[in-house]
C-alpha cells in the first residue's frame, strides 16, 4: 500500500518551467510533498501565513499580486507562482494576493523548495530571477510618458530644408540627398506652400514617367497639414495617423520654424541605439556630434529601465562609442586628407571588452602598418589629437593614465607594438602587469582587420602556455579580493568624496575580467569580451561548465547591480559612481550579492591553483 501516484498532478507540474528540468525521481518527491487548496472570490485575498511561507502554484483560477499600496505587480493564471519572495528573503510577505477567479492552488512546502533549489541550478535561478524582476517592478520609477507631456519643439529639427517652388524636382532631390532627409519644405515668397517627400517623388514623378526638370510645385503636396511648436507630441502623432503622413511642417504665427517627422518621435520615445548610431553617422561636424552624444546618458537610462541585460547594455553603449570614434576619424580625415598608410584605431580596456557604462574614460591607441616617416608622423599626430579631443568633448574624458592615441608612446607601427607586448610578456614587471589589464583587452574599432590580426596573433602566441607570465598576471589579479567580509561587518572603502559603499567595479566585475583574461591568454583565445571569453573557455573545457556558468552569472548579476545603481543615482541627481550603498539593499539582494562575490572568490582560488602551482 505505497503512496499512490497522482498522475494528473505529476503531469501538470512536469509541464511547468522550471520544474521541467527536474529528474523524474526529484519530480516525484516534489509532487508528493504538495498540498492542494481552493480559494474562492468570496474571501477576496489568499491568506498568507507569515509563519508558514509556501510556494503557491496556480492550478486553475486567476489571481493578482498587489503591493501594500495596492499597486498591481503581477497577474497570475494557470501555471504561475506566488509566495516565493518570502521563501527567498525570509521576510514576511508584504504583497497581497487577491482572488479574481476561484481556483485550485498547489502548495509546495519551504523545505522542499529549498531542496529543489539545491538540486537544480535552473530551478534556483528561475525563482531568483522572478524575484529580482518583481523587485525591480516594484522599485521602478514611473517613466514620464513622453508623448503626453512633451512638446513638439523638443523633437523637431529647427532649420528645415527649404526650396523655392519654381526649382526643379531634380534640384530638390539633390538637396535632400545632400542633407540625407526624406522631405523638403516648399517656399514661395517666404511662405510655406507645400511639402515634397520621397513618396511624392515616387508617386508623382517617377511613376508618371516625368523627368527631373519638372518644377517642384507640380509634384509637391500643396497646403500640407501643419502643427505649432508648442503642441503636444501626442497631437503630432494623432495628426500623422489621421492623415497617414510622416512629415509635419511646424508653423508658428505664419512663420515656418521647422519640421517634425515620425522618425523624430520614435527617436524621442526610446532613444533607440540604432537610431542614435544612424544619427551619429549622419553628422557632418564635431559640434553636431557633441549635440548627438548628449543623448547617450538617456539611452543608458532607457536601457536600464527597460531591464536589458547588463551584457547587452555594455555592448550597445560600446557600439555607440565605436560609431562615434569611427565618425570622428572619418570627419577628421576629410580635413586632413587620406592617411599615408593603413592604420587601426585600437580600443583598450572597457571599450575593448565591450562593457562600457556611464562615465567611461577613453583608452585607445593607434596601430600603424609600418614605421612612419616624418610627414606620416605629423599626419597621425594631428589625427589622433583631433579624435581624442572630439571624444573628450562628446563625454568620454581623457584617460587619466594617458593611454591614448594622442600620446606618441601609444602610436606605433606593428613591429614596435609587437616589441612592446613582447617586453611585457617576457619581463613581467609590476608596471607591465598593470598595463596588461588594459592593453590585453584590445579590439580594433577602425582599420583593416588583417593588420590588427597580425598584432593579436603575435601577442597570443607569446602568452599561450607562458607559465611565468601567466603566474605573474595571476599574482597581480589576486592582489584585490571580493568584499566578502562586508557581509559580516561593513568593511567598506572610501571613494574620494567620503562616501562609503561596495565598489562593484573594482571588487567585482574587474576581478572576473581578470580571471577571464588570464585563462583566455593562457589558451590563446581571441575574444576580449568577458562573457564571450568565458563561453569560449567553457567550450574548450578550460573551465568546467558549472564554474563557467556561475562566473558568467556572477558577472552579469554584479554588472546589473552596478548599472541599476547608477540608474538610481542618475535619477536622484547624485554623482554617478561604482559604489553601492549597502543600506539600500534588501536581504535577498544582499544574499544574492554575497553568492556572486563567493563565486568570484572561488574563481580566484581556482585560478591560483591552476596558474601558480609551480610557486
Amino acid at each position, binding site marked *: *500500500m505505497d*503512496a499512490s501516484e497522482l498522475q494528473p498532478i505529476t503531469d501538470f507540474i512536469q509541464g511547468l518551467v522550471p520544474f521541467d528540468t527536474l529528474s523524474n525521481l526529484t519530480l516525484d518527491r516534489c509532487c508528493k510533498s*504538495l*498540498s492542494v487548496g481552493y*480559494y474562492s472570490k468570496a474571501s477576496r485575498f489568499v491568506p498568507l501565513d507569515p509563519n508558514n511561507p509556501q510556494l503557491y502554484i496556480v492550478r486553475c483560477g486567476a489571481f493578482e499580486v498587489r503591493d501594500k499600496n495596492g499597486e498591481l505587480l503581477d497577474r497570475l493564471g494557470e501555471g504561475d507562482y506566488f509566495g516565493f519572495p518570502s521563501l527567498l528573503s525570509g521576510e514576511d510577505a508584504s504583497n497581497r494576493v487577491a482572488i479574481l*477567479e476561484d481556483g485550485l492552488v498547489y502548495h509546495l512546502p519551504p523545505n522542499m523548495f529549498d531542496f529543489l533549489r539545491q538540486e537544480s541550478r535552473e530551478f534556483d535561478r528561475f525563482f531568483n530571477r522572478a524575484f529580482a524582476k518583481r523587485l525591480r517592478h516594484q522599485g521602478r520609477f514611473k517613466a514620464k510618458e513622453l508623448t503626453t507631456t512633451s512638446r513638439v519643439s523638443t523633437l523637431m529639427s529647427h532649420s528645415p530644408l527649404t526650396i523655392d517652388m519654381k526649382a526643379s524636382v531634380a534640384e530638390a532631390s539633390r538637396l535632400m540627398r545632400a542633407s540625407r532627409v526624406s522631405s523638403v519644405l516648399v517656399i514661395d515668397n517666404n511662405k510655406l506652400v507645400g511639402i515634397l517627400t520621397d513618396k511624392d517623388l515616387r508617386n508623382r514623378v517617377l511613376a508618371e514617367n516625368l523627368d527631373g526638370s519638372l518644377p517642384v510645385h507640380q509634384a509637391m503636396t500643396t497646403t500640407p497639414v501643419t502643427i505649432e511648436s508648442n503642441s503636444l507630441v501626442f497631437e503630432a502623432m494623432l495628426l500623422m495617423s489621421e492623415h497617414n503622413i510622416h512629415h509635419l511642417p511646424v508653423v508658428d504665427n505664419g512663420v515656418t520654424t521647422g519640421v517634425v517627422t515620425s522618425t523624430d518621435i520614435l527617436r524621442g520615445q526610446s532613444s533607440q541605439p540604432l537610431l542614435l548610431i544612424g544619427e551619429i553617422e549622419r553628422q557632418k561636424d564635431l559640434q553636431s556630434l557633441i549635440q548627438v552624444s548628449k543623448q547617450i546618458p538617456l539611452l543608458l537610462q532607457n536601457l536600464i529601465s527597460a531591464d536589458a541585460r547588463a551584457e547587452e547594455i555594455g555592448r550597445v553603449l560600446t557600439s555607440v562609442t565605436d560609431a562615434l570614434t569611427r565618425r570622428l576619424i572619418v570627419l577628421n580625415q576629410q580635413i586632413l586628407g587620406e592617411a599615408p598608410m593603413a592604420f587601426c584605431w585600437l580600443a583598450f580596456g572597457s571599450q575593448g571588452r565591450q562593457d562600457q557604462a556611464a562615465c567611461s574614460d577613453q583608452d585607445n591607441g593607434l596601430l600603424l602598418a609600418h614605421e612612419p616617416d616624418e610627414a606620416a608622423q605629423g599626419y597621425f599626430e594631428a589625427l589622433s589629437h583631433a579624435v581624442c579631443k572630439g571624444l573628450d568633448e562628446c563625454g568620454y574624458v581623457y584617460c587619466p593614465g594617458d593611454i591614448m592615441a594622442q600620446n606618441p608612446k601609444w602610436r606605433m607601427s606593428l613591429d614596435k607594438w609587437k616589441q612592446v607586448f613582447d617586453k611585457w610578456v617576457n619581463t613581467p614587471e609590476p608596471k607591465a602587469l598593470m598595463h596588461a589589464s588594459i592593453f590585453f583587452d584590445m579590439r580594433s574599432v577602425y582599420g583593416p582587420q588583417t593588420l590588427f590580426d597580425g598584432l593579436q596573433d603575435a601577442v597570443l602566441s607569446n602568452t599561450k602556455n607562458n607559465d611565468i607570465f601567466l603566474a605573474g598576471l595571476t599574482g597581480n589579479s589576486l592582489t584585490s579580493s571580493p568584499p566578502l567580509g562586508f557581509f559580516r561587518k561593513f568593511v567598506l572603502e572610501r571613494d574620494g568624496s567620503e562616501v562609503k559603499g561596495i565598489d562593484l567595479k573594482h571588487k567585482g566585475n574587474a576581478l572576473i575580467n581578470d580571471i577571464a583574461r588570464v585563462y583566455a591568454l593562457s589558451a590563446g583565445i581571441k575574444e576580449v569580451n568577458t562573457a564571450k571569453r568565458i563561453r569560449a573557455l567553457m567550450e574548450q573545457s578550460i573551465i568546467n561548465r558549472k564554474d563557467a556558468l556561475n562566473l558568467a552569472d556572477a558577472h552579469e548579476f554584479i554588472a546589473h547591480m552596478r548599472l541599476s545603481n547608477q540608474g538610481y543615482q542618475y535619477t536622484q541627481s547624485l554623482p554617478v559612481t561604482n559604489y553601492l550603498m549597502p543600506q539600500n539593499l534588501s536581504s535577498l539582494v544582499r544574499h544574492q550579492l554575497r553568492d556572486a562575490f563567493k563565486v568570484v572568490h572561488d574563481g580566484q582560488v581556482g585560478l591560483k591553483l591552476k596558474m601558480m602551482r609551480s610557486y
Partner: protein
Amino acid sequence: MRNLYLKTRLQLNALFCKEAVISDYNRALVAQISKPLSQLPLMAVDLEMTGLDCQFDQILSIGLIPIHNGLLQVAKSQQLLVSIDGSVGDSAAIHGILDNQLTQAVSAKQAMAWFLEQTKGHVLVAHHAPLDLCFLKTEIQRCYGQTIQFVAIDTMAVEKRRLLRQHDVIKEGTLRLDACRQRYGLPVYAAHNAAVDALACGELLLAQMAGIAGNDELSLFDLLG
C-alpha cells in the same frame, strides 16, 4: 441538536460493539465531529467495484486522500488494491485494473483493517457516498461480524441541494463528478483510478465549501444536509 443525536448514535454503537477496532473507530469520531469544519480531519474516499450491488459485487480498490486544515495532503494520498473471488470481468474496461495487477492485492479482511486504521478519527467524503458506504459496511460486517457507524459528507448530495436551492432543473448527468467539477472550473482529469477520483472528489468538496461559506465558519452539519 443534530450534533447530540449523531454523537449519541456513535457512542451507542461503540458501547454495544463487541469488536474493539470498531468501537475505537466510532469513539474517535465522537471527539472530532463538534469541531468547526476547517479543523475537522476529513478523508476523501473513492472505491472501484466490480459492479453496483453491494451485496454481490466486490471492492477492487480503495483510494484515500486526507484533508487537513482545508488542504488536500498529496503526500498522504494512498491507493490499495483488493483481491477478489473470480475475475474483474467487464469492469476492467472502466477501472483499467487487470487481473494480473491484482497479484499485489491484499485480502478483503486486510483491506478493511487498513481502511479502518487510515480513516480513524476522520469524517469521510465521497461522491455519491451511500454506494461506497454500503460496500464498506457490508464488507466490515462480513469481516468483523459487527455494524459500523460512519460519518460521511456526500459531495453529490451537497451539489444537489445547491442546485435545487438555485431552482435549477437537475437533468441526467448533471450530478456526475466530472460535471460537478466543471461547474467550479476544476481541471479535467484524464486518468481514473481510486486515488485520482478521491483527489477529484476532495477538490470538489473544497470548492463547494468555499462556495457555500464565503468567509463564514462552516460546521459539519451544513454539509450533512
